[in-house]
């Protein structure tokens, strides 16, 4: 499924013409460095894969037009994971054995990550996870070849618990998708909140609708009939869009509860909802495009909006940053040898749109932090809600210690 991006073609042609004219060191037949990516490209969550692919394309364009990596161009080979572990495992093998990619990246779902990560060491290529958030893959399932550049559930929930503890709500429940992500979000949130505020009540009655359930009315009614004071909502994608619209219809947002959406500030969802995302609820994202004041972020956000007409989502940023992580690692290593690259990535720091990112040596989790804010007025140009009272947490403070992760590298 290699896509031919006409723009990429033009830039590489232009680059090639420039280089040969200047008689630079690059020989024309030097083969490119191949990045193998796995994202959800079909079905309900296809929009996440599309944002990621755009992030990758943007990074590759920038890098190739400024001379590539070790004088070689980068090339993307992308596969559809379909959000299924079995499909992703096959895709990873195809990428490594047939397409001969040098490095792997991607993964949109915790379920996929849990299935794929244990098979990565046999492929002997590094994998940078850019979206899937289950703590396990940089915890009890960690291995020498797997890294994660995006925030995990443990980091996000520790931050969420700090906000929750500052609110007046003492009785909490959850609505989340019925798989690893929903259950682990609630588990880590509960544990972190209990630690800060021991007298808080975590309700027995929780709701985990099927992923893709379409009708969330029964679950919303359940919460509205309960005496919950705060609700942690870890639904995402189309589920979250459905939930918000159905909850609006039922008057859920007019009731007085603290609402925290653990992936509510995904621009994929904010774009779909527009002003129907209620104001004043807590929304989180792994990266908020308006939250970082540095040159790399300004350049990235502007280039992304220029190219695609909307602001980048956290998934686009994660994918973009992963390409730069590989660029830095390959240059530092001086080769694309899989095991050597994995060694370099361990403990490596580099500059990304969300600041300096370090892959912690003990568990390969990037020291990044979630962004939490309250939904504010509509952005005049971008057609989505803005985030107010934006909180960017200290990655060191919200991350588990290596001992807590259960990772033993």
């Amino acid at each position: 499924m290699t896509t031919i991006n006409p723009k990429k073609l033009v830039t590489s042609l232009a680059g090639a013409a420039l280089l040969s004219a200047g008689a630079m060191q690059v020989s024309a037949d030097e083969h490119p460095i191949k990045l193998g990516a796995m994202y959800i490209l079909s079905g309900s969550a296809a929009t996440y894969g599309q944002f990621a692919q755009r992030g990758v394309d943007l990074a590759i364009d920038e890098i190739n037009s400024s001379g590539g990596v070790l004088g070689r161009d980068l090339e993307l080979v992308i596969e559809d994971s379909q959000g299924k572990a079995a499909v992703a495992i096959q895709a990873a093998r195809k990428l490594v054995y047939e397409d001969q990619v040098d490095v792997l990246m991607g993964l949109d779902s915790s379920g996929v990550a849990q299935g794929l990560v244990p098979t990565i060491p046999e492929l002997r290529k590094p994998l940078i996870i850019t979206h899937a958030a289950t703590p396990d893959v940089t915890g009890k399932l960690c291995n020498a070849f797997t890294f994660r550049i995006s925030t995990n559930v443990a980091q996000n929930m520790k931050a969420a618990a700090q906000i929750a503890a500052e609110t007046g709500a003492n009785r909490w429940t959850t609505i989340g998708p019925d798989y690893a992500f929903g259950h682990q979000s609630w588990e880590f949130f509960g544990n972190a909140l209990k630690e800060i505020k021991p007298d808080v009540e975590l309700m027995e009655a929780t709701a985990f609708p099927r992923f893709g359930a379409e009708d969330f009315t029964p679950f919303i009614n359940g919460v509205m009939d309960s005496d919950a004071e705060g609700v942690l909502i870890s639904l995402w994608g189309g589920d979250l869009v459905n939930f918000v619209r159905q909850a609006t219809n039922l008057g859920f947002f007019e009731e007085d509860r603290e609402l925290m959406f653990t992936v509510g500030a995904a621009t994929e969802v904010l774009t779909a909802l527009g002003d129907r995302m209620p104001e004043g609820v807590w929304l989180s994202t792994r990266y908020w495009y308006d939250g970082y004041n540095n040159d790399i972020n300004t350049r990235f956000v502007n280039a992304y909006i220029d190219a695609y007409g909307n602001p980048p989502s956290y998934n686009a940023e994660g994918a973009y940053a992963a390409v730069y992580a590989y660029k830095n690692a390959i240059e530092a290593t001086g080769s694309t040898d899989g095991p050597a690259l994995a060694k370099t990535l361990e403990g490596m720091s580099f500059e990304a749109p969300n600041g300096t990112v370090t892959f912690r040596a003990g568990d390969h989790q990037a020291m990044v932090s979630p962004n939490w804010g309250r939904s504010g007025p509509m952005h005049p140009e971008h057609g989505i809600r803005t985030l107010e009272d934006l909180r960017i947490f200290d990655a060191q403070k919200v991350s588990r210690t290596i001992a807590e992760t259960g990772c033993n590298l």
Partner: protein
Amino acid sequence: MSGFGSALLNSLDIGLLLFVIAVGLNIVFGVLNVINFAHGALYMLGAYLAFTLMNLLGLSFIVALIVAPMAVAVIAVLIDRLVLRYIYERDIADSLLLTFALLLIINESVRMIWGSGIHTVQPPEMLRGSVELFGDARYPVYSLFVIVVGLVLVAALWFIFNRTRAGKIMRAAALDRDMAEALCINTKLVVTGVFAFGAWLAALGGVVAAPMRALDPGMGDKIIIESFIVVVIGGLGSFPGALAGAMVLGLIHGLGGRYLPEINLLLPFVGMALVLLFKPNGLMGKGANV
């Protein structure tokens, strides 16, 4: 009590929408002997056409409700004439394969035309918000509208099948196509007409669903699984079967989601397994089918 009342209404709302979609699948199977895997894709097409008509062309919901299902019915006639007619006489597995291919083609076409993003359609002004029912419990107006549409269709379909000549011809063609042909019924026309009618029902379900469900390229896949569960529970090939199956699944979702949220994932399959154990042809299924 008010909670129970709204849970029951919610079950009815979910069940009737499922009925509108699954009954088309069932009628098509009854007459064409084709299990249409692409039925969910036609539902999705209805929803996306409604999105185009309403959000991009600025037309009203009523226009979408009339135009989108008709457009999908026309597409269905083309599908029938161009591909489906070649496999009527073949084994049922062939129709599964062919319609699965159609599903993939429609899914990818939708993604190419409308993009991967999630789209939404707003309900018309008068169907927004909620009303007070059962004392203090509130119920969304739009869900009441879905219930009304569903009940009207139940009545209309019952009338068509039992009281009109077209309905009798459809039932005759379903029972014995050769005999019907011997009696000078143009079965080719009937078959194409029934397939288009099934697609019309799917697309109507899509338009009705659009204002409360997110439009994304996977929405057809989600509904086809539900529709198959309806058909397994109710019985393949019968109109009362689709109604019974849809109501049971509606109750499973509505009451199960409300009172047994921990096991909501399991319940539809438990229901399906129980039916298969005790009534292998479904609640209303006839022994002869499948």
